[in-house]
């Protein structure tokens, strides 16, 4: 079956499924034999038991799904105040029995048109954003944080064909960590560019992004690199993330093995240039899947630095649940190998409510107005799908 035919069939069948970007195209996982909804009570055992599953040596020996932001905080002992929100599950994982390779060209005609309220409501207006921004600038001056990312949310009520959204999104932005999940009462689509964990045998890598530039006719890769290098604010943010990710890896890796493989390079995607680094290490003996997840998540580049103190500042401020935003999506194989991204640039649709969360970094030389608008631009790319 061609990719196009397959997408049509799966959409008609109404079966839950997951799609994740692969090197050559996309992988589609379906026919789920198990679905685990994560809670603070079952998460430790769930992760511990994955590697106890007997491998049948096929390509579905894995659990695929996501960890939300809150459960990742709780996992490392950071508590959140009671928050408003959709009451969406803290994490869900599936055991697939079928895996299909799809090509890079995802063509799909929606079965019915989306019904949506095109107007999005924002949860923080400019004045309250500025208020929080100024509070955090003070915290930077007093040294409690060096970089912090304020989250804003755009929401509407809508019925969407998530597969249609995802296919259109991948056409304009073929992100290396893009994924979607479609289940009965919810869907997630994301064009995440950022890989947080790639683990094969005892080698682990992480690939933080700090710095994004939209492509234009005047730009090329060399000019983009020159732009990032000259931009002191982007450079400092990036440096901070590199040192933080080195440290997170060092917690779980053998001394002397943590190396920066690619240092501050520009990667070119369909519409964007990203300023990225690639850091690798060799895991210590007896490091478990749970140790790795607790060591690396929630991914630092979308939180700020230092991680724990910054999480506490954010959690004291944010009144609304981040849900999936800045959590991680990916899979854990029975043999312990794994791949996880950071969930950003995403739409969560739950019981016909959509939400798009965005954030941008506050460092000492940030400007509230600029960051607020930056957030809007990030959200707009996703809101345009509703047109």
């Amino acid at each position, binding site marked *: 079956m061609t990719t196009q035919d397959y997408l049509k069939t799966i959409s008609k069948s109404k079966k839950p499924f997951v799609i994740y970007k692969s090197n050559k195209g996309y992988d589609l996982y379906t026919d789920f034999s198990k679905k685990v909804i994560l809670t603070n009570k079952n998460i430790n055992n769930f992760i511990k038991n994955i590697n106890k599953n007997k491998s049948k040596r096929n390509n579905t020996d894995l659990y695929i799904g996501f960890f939300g932001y809150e459960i990742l905080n709780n996992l490392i002992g950071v508590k959140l105040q009671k928050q408003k929100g959709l009451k969406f599950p803290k994490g869900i994982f599936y055991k697939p029995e079928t895996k299909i390779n799809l090509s890079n060209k995802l063509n799909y005609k929606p079965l019915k048109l989306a019904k949506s309220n095109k107007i999005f409501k924002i949860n923080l207006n400019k004045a309250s954003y500025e208020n929080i921004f100024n509070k955090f600038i003070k915290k*930077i*001056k*007093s*040294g*409690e*944080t*060096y*970089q912090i990312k304020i989250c804003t949310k755009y929401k509407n009520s809508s019925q969407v064909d998530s597969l249609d959204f995802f296919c259109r999104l991948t056409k304009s932005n073929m992100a290396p960590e893009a994924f979607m999940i479609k289940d009965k009462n919810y869907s997630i689509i994301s064009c995440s560019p950022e890989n947080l964990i790639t683990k094969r045998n005892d080698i682990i890598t992480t690939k933080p992004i700090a710095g994004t530039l939209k492509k234009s006719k005047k730009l090329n890769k060399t000019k983009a690199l020159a732009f990032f290098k000259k931009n002191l604010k982007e*450079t*400092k*943010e*990036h*440096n*901070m993330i*590199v*040192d*933080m990710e*080195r*440290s*997170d*890896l*060092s*917690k779980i890796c053998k*001394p*002397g093995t*943590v190396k*920066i493989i690619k*240092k501050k390079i520009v990667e070119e995607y369909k519409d964007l240039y990203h300023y990225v680094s690639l850091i690798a290490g060799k895991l210590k003996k007896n490091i478990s899947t749970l140790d790795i997840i607790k060591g690396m998540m929630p991914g*630092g580049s979308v939180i700020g*630095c*230092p*991680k*724990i*103190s*910054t999480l506490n500042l954010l959690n004291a401020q944010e009144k609304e649940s981040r849900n999936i935003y800045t959590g991680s999506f990916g899979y854990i194989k029975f043999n312990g190998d794994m791949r996880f991204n950071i969930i950003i640039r995403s739409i969560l649709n739950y019981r016909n409510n959509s939400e798009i969360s965005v954030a941008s970094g506050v*460092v*000492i030389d940030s400007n509230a107005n600029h960051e607020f608008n930056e957030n809007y631009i990030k959200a707009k790319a996703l809101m345009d799908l509703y047109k």
Partner: protein
Amino acid sequence: MIYIIDHKDSFTHNIVHQFSNFTDVECSNFNNLNQKKLDKAKTIVFSPGPGSPKDYPHSAKIYNRYKGKKKIIGICLGFQQILYCEKAKIVEQNKIYHGFQSEVKVTSKNSLFRKNQKFKVGRYHSLKLKEPFYAKDFEITMRCAISNVAMAIENNKEKIYGFQFHPESFLTENGNLFIKKILST
């Protein structure tokens, strides 16, 4: 063995790996110390961390208990902690350096490092030492080449050393050199 006291920082394990190049390292959180291992350690390192030295009274107690008895090293917040325990004032600075590479210069002939030598180092600090600062046997031995802010202190008599910058940062060139020299005294 070296005992690194972590102040919940996101750079501490870079320091653990850096010191592991030279000797055995223990590391634990400042509010979860292993007293037996701390007693056994030859050297105590105060890690970087968020906030200011006055937020960590427990670490100040450790400093006062072991000063002169063990080698003590402080990095960033740890550097400020040593100074704070020596009655210095730690204050906010106008220009803040986070993720910044800058040049420091050795300004004292009594330093373990050669006077006037310059190093490129990584910095992550909101606060700084307020000067003038005097404490018995302590000397400021490095300064920022541009702003003149204190960047290192040495007390070679009691073997107490501190860096305001981060020797473990990838922004610091030859970072291992600093640690090697100080550990070999």
